[in-house]
């Protein structure tokens, strides 16, 4: 999976490409871990993500839980209509900060 990481002070922007699903989410999660060290704000830029399944939701939820615990923040940006639909039907639209 192609993933772009960008750091700006203590803000990490993560921009994956393709799908965030059962097969790809574990790899995305693993590659994010070292990048998260010392960061207190994370932006998930989903402009190049086609859709998410529960595997992708798991990643977003665990990230949200982690950031809440350490007093940091998570923002999800550039979500397409298919992703919004999934976030809405699962109630994730209410627990994630989506722009």
């Amino acid at each position, binding site marked *: 999976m192609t993933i772009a990481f960008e750091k700006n002070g203590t803000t990490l922007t993560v921009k994956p490409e393709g*799908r965030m*699903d*059962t*097969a790809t989410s574990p790899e995305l999660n693993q590659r994010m871990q070292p990048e998260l060290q010392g960061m207190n704000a994370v932006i998930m830029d989903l402009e190049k993500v*086609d*859709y*998410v*399944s*529960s*595997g992708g*939701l*798991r990643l977003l*939820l665990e990230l*949200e*839980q982690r950031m*809440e*615990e350490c007093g940091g923040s998570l923002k999800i940006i550039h979500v397409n*209509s*298919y992703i919004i*639909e*999934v976030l809405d*039907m*699962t*109630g994730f639209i*209410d*627990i*994630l900060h989506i722009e």
Partner: protein
Amino acid sequence: MKEITLPANTDSIEAVTHFVNEQLEPMSCPERTRIQLSVAIDELFGNIANYAYVPEEGQATVRVETEDNPRGIIITFIDSGTPYNPLEAKEPDTTLPARQRRIGGLGIFMVKKTMDDITYEYKDGQNILTVRKNF
């Protein structure tokens, strides 16, 4: 009716999705429906890959039928693993705050919400899960 049998692991999900997309192509399936089906395949085949045979290995069969009137697709997932009816899983509480949310049951919840029909039976040592989507 066409079917494909492959190893029940997450590496096979891509091949299953491709197999189903091939049947959808001549049917003018809307993009939104195609993506809902891709997510359903990911969830249902993913569950078989992660739970049906673990720690052993096994195979799973995906059967596809297409219909014209109404236009739609029927996908059946078959495995010979541990008997399990995913429709009996407790629905997740989608109103909980982030720190209380769990992922368990979310996949089948999404499939139920997006497919027009979903049925399960256990027969001759096989889990048989069928989804129907009209478009």
